[in-house]
């Protein structure tokens, strides 16, 4: 064995520990990076002298906790759904503003109260004006609720579209990473890829299949998003259905419509396509029932001047959107009827029949107030349940993240200890070189 080989050995040790410290410093600098998997230097390889050629420079190894990773991608989809549900249902509840005096239940009460006042004072012009004004307030409130729900529904379309665009961007990036991985695998690329999959899993329910070489295939409901260099983009489409626009997510070529059941998109689509239309329909039903019942009685009544066959609400109320007073009544409240044919001015039989409607099962077998309250309670119930689920989902995810980080996270203590270890080894290797140098010097002095 020649003395120069010890030089070589010392040099390799120096380089190896330098690289180890490089890896350590990389870990330390990514200490707070959520999507960084820590790297480890295989120390056994470093110190294995083997054939006597010294140590080979080993690539640092990226640690993984695949089970927790996959679980996280699964659970993230649920969290995404709960979060989007929570956010938009909360807005729906805010629109109804039942915690304020502007809530429909309060306005309904005021409407019936006005009729009650008119029944107590059927001769009065003032009480008629009051009934007119409360009627306007009622119809305005219905229209406000309808408009605000519609606006929310419309605002959700670009929200959904931007999520789909995001999905398309992510799958393209993942495809690029797949290509690069084939000829140039790198730990940094894997970090980036896992981060993208993590983001994607929050938006849509994906299945991930990973090959040995690090390439991944992504599927939604059995349909390919990314696989073997192919990318299948998604697009959105609005189709009219039962008088409402439903939003569908489909493959770009339009071949298949996706049934998205998890992730933020699932929550958004369900609220856009099912929940808001349901609430709108119920408001329409309520408006129609009130208009029809009040009109039917009101038409049969007479005002003080003996005019009859007048509708209180507009003749054609098809729902909350066109819920209005009869234009004639709006302009001239004296047209409001209080009595039946042939009765005196002091008779309130018609007003009494209308105020009695608040106790009658007007809509779907329940009173107006109960019908509306059960709808509001339904929204509240859904929201509360969803908030609870979101909290427990966050807990599940936190535990999974901790389980993953237990393997892949950076511990400062550990890195510092290793750094000292490597530094000492580096120092020792340097001393070896110094010793060899002295040996050579001694040798050369032998002349």
């Amino acid at each position, binding site marked *: 064995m020649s003395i120069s080989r010890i030089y070589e050995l010392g040099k390799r040790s120096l380089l190896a520990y330098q690289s180890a410290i490089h890896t350590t410093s990389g870990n330390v600098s990514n200490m707070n990076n959520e999507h960084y998997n820590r790297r480890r230097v295989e120390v056994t390889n470093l110190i294995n002298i083997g054939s006597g050629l010294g140590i080979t420079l080993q690539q640092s190894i990226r640690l993984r906790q695949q089970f927790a990773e996959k679980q996280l991608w699964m659970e993230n989809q649920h969290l995404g759904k709960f979060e989007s549900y929570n956010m938009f249902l*909360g807005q729906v509840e805010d629109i109804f503003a039942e915690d304020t005096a502007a809530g429909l*239940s309060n306005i309904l*009460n005021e409407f019936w109260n006005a009729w009650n006042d008119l029944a107590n004072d059927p001769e009065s012009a003032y009480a008629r004006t009051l009934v007119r004004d409360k009627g306007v307030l009622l119809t305005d409130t219905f229209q406000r609720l309808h408009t605000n729900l519609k606006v929310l529904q419309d605002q959700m379309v670009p929200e959904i579209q931007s999520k789909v665009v995001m999905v398309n961007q992510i799958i393209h990036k993942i495809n690029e990473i797949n290509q690069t991985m084939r000829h140039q695998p790198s730990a940094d690329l894997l970090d980036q890829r896992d981060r993208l999959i993590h983001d994607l899993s929050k938006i849509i329910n994906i299945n991930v299949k990973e090959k040995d070489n690090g390439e991944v295939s992504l599927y939604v409901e059995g349909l390919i998003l990314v696989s073997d260099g192919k990318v299948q983009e998604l697009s959105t489409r609005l189709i009219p259905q039962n008088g409402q626009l439903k939003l569908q997510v489909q493959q770009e070529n339009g071949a298949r419509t996706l049934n998205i059941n998890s992730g933020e998109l699932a929550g958004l689509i369900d609220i856009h396509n099912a929940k808001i239309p349901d609430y709108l329909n119920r408001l329409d039903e309520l408006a129609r029932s009130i208009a029809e019942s009040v009109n039917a009685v009101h038409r049969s009544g007479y005002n003080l001047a003996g005019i009859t066959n007048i509708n209180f609400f507009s003749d054609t109320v098809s729902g909350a959107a066109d819920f209005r007073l009869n234009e004639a009544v709006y302009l001239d409240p004296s047209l409001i009827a209080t009595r039946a044919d042939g009765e005196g*001015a*002091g008779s309130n039989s018609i007003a*009494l029949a209308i105020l009695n409607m608040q106790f009658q099962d007007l809509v779907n077998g329940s009173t107006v107030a109960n019908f509306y309250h059960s709808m509001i309670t339904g929204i509240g119930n859904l929201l509360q349940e969803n908030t609870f689920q979101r909290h427990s989902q966050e807990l599940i995810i936190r535990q999974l993240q*901790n389980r993953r980080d237990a393997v892949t996270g950076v511990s400062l203590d550990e890195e510092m200890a290793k750094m000292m270890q490597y530094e000492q080894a580096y120092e020792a290797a340097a001393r070896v070189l110094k010793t060899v140098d002295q040996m050579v010097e001694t040798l050369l002095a032998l002349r």
Partner: protein
Amino acid sequence: MRITQSMIVRDTLTQVQGNRLTMHQIQERISTQKKVQKASDDPTGYSRIQRYRTAADQNEQFLKNIFQSRNWIETTVSALENFHDFSNMAKGIAIQAADGAISPDMRAMFAQSLRSILEESLAVANTRYLDKNVFAGTHTTHPQPFTLEAGGVTYAGNDDPIQRKISAGNVITINTTGQQIMDTNFFTEINNLIAALENNDVSAIQNGIDIMAGVVKEFENLMTVAASSLSGLMMMETRLTQTNVDLTAYIADEENAILEEEIVKFKAQEIAYQAALQTAADVMKINILRYL
């Protein structure tokens, strides 16, 4: 288990955030004094509150109706009392005039005072309450339902009831109609008595005593009916008032935050929050670097 920096930071943030959220919620309950504001705060509690509130609001309507009905009926009763007095006075005049010793001039004077009673009673019959005719059926806006003409008193109102709703299933009639006044024959009999006095018809005057006694009875009956609906109204009022006191208590139970409870909760949460902050500060400070 390896404990890493990211885990420490994540758990600390979650705890601190969780404590913050709870404190925020309690603070909101304290500042609004309400524990249920939206349906999502407590769906079952919310639906109960709404049912109570609807019932309480409806009862308020009924109480308002009862209050107005009472005033109406009280006006009616006092007018009927007047009629009762008038018929008694007429009966008294008839008794005095039936005395054989009374001169025809005297009887003519009695007739005169009966005429003024008739005029006064006509004013009472046209009594108005809140600018509405009390005794005109539903012709409440008629300028003058009772008029005195040569042939006697005519009634231009109708026999229709004026109704008020005083509970969900209960509509009552609050008026005594002018027709009922007419049916006592008060006006006819007064006129007959006047005629008998002017004609000096002693036997007709004597008849008039019994007839007027009958009219007095008629008014007593009308007053009894009105007074009994008044006492019915008062019973209903007591019941509704009590119900609303109960309902308000139920709503408060469901809806109002109990301040003492919330403050104790807040204090407990504050301690937890401070403890979390303290331990987080300590844990994050400790690492190997301090010892190298």
